[in-house]
């Protein structure tokens, strides 16, 4: 794996291809552009409404935590966060299951209609959400899934299938057929092959997929608004979106709410980021 062998630790590997200093400087510059807006959001959240009116871009003169408090109380961040967690965690896990099964079939099994099904799955990604909004809503009602976490979970899983299947199929395809055949010779059935051969090797991909899905599902607004209307099941982004009033937008309050809503995703990423770049381990398949 890159960076883990002794040779890589000496740094000889990286100094060869790019001039180190200019590269690092460029990277620092780009990092500044990604961090500053977030800092700006945080600073805005620390300003009182009146202060923001007169001091929009500078450091807060009278920093206050009242916006965070109001966002927590009025936007019911704690309560909604629990709902979001349930929905998103379940949808991510289900998504792994559904997509790995499909990806395995599409990458390593031979059967009639393989290419057609693959294209069909990808093709379904191209329908703009706005168009299916209303028929989908009616369908959920007739299935009794409105205002149920299950309804939103199933919609999220469905929405994640094309991307997830495509991603996992690409990665699974990269796993040589010899490994599969070796396991088959050992007497493993397809389910076991999937579990013991494919999943461990494609772990970076699964982690990546999990993070992507967690992200967009956590931030998703439209379907969550439509499907989980009752306050007891509502999700976080919806609660935060309601901080936008009809005409006025209390920017500091909104900033605080959005900051709180973004924190869990940031934390998740910080915890799992190392998994992502772990490379393939050769010869470790049993």
């Amino acid at each position: 794996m890159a960076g883990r062998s002794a040779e890589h630790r000496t740094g000889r590997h990286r100094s060869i291809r790019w001039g180190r200093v200019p590269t690092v400087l460029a990277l620092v510059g780009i990092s500044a552009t990604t961090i500053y807006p977030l800092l700006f959001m945080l600073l805005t959240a620390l300003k009182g409404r009146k202060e923001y009116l007169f001091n929009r871009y500078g450091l807060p003169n009278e920093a206050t935590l009242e916006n965070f408090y109001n966002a927590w109380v009025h936007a019911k961040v704690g309560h909604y966060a629990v709902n979001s967690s349930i929905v998103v965690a379940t949808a991510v896990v289900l998504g792994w299951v559904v997509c790995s099964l499909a990806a395995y079939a599409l990458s390593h099994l031979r059967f009639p209609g393989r290419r057609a099904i693959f294209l069909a799955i990808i093709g379904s990604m191209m329908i703009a959400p706005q168009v299916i909004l209303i028929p989908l809503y009616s369908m959920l009602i007739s299935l009794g899934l409105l205002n149920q976490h299950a309804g939103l979970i199933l919609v999220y899983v469905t929405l994640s299938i094309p991307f997830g299947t495509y991603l996992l199929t690409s990665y699974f395809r990269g796993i040589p057929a010899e490994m599969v055949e070796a396991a088959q010779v050992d007497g493993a059935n397809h389910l076991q092959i999937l579990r013991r051969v494919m999943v461990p090797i494609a772990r970076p991909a699964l982690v990546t997929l999990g993070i992507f899905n967690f992200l967009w599902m956590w931030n998703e607004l439209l379907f969550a608004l439509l499907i989980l209307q009752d306050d007891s099941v509502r999700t976080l982004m919806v609660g935060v979106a309601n901080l936008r009033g009809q005409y006025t937008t209390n920017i500091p309050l909104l900033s605080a709410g959005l900051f709180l809503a973004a924190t869990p995703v940031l934390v998740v990423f910080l915890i799992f980021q190392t998994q992502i770049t772990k490379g393939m381990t050769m010869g470790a398949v049993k």
Partner: protein
Amino acid sequence: MSLAGRKTGAVYAYLFLAPACLLLIVFRVVPAVSAIGHSVTSWDGVTPAVYIGLDNFRELVRDGVFWTALKNNLVLVLAVPVWVLVSLLLALPLHQEVPAWKFFRTAFFLPSVLSPVIIGTLFTALLRHDGPVNHGLELVGLGRVARDWLGDPAAALPTLTMVILWGVFGEGVIVFLAGLAAVPQEIFEAARLDGAKGWVYLRHIVIPSLRHVIEFWGVNLVVWSFTSLFAFVYVMTGGGPGYATMLVEYQLYLQAFEANRMGYACALGTALFLMVFGLILLQVRLMAEKED
């Protein structure tokens, strides 16, 4: 593989594909068919639809707003290779673990953590004519470049493109990092021993190894640019000034929910779907040809 083996392979295949296909059919295909069916009707989404044949499509062809929106979408598609390249170029030094690479990786991914709503709100504030961006430009002596980024019809679309890039490049970096990590590292070793540098390294080592990943990410971004930019446009420009940043997806929304013309919106959606599908097929075919 023996005949029996192939058969059980097929059975397993269909079984494994069942959950995904079932979900897609129920929650995506059926509503989509319903929507496509409604494209030949005049419908406000609530009362019964009235069949009008191809009138919606005839109107579409004559609709100046649609063509402007499509043009804007195509401009975005042209930006996709740039988005892909930026992510790829930034992934390389990180893969090679330059000092503080972990920090950079986190920093680059930060924007992706934010929902488009917040990105849009943030940048609308930052890009104001008296905002930090213009102040910054003046500080470095580029005051003449400063302008009303989102209010100037000529600058609006490019600005939108840049903001979207900001929001999405980090994800690309992660995707390419994962891709680079999944490639057998011996390839990079061999290249280093051979003394490969810079552009040669990029073109002959990196890109071929990451072919599938690049294709995947490119395809994803193209489709995404046609179907998921709604929040950005909505928050930042509303399709304006005038129609300068109007996108087909946004026009669809306006027709469906503002103008109450769900039938026409479905026609727009159908047209959108066909176009995007064609684009993808084309792209996949091109990539496949390069392989051979």
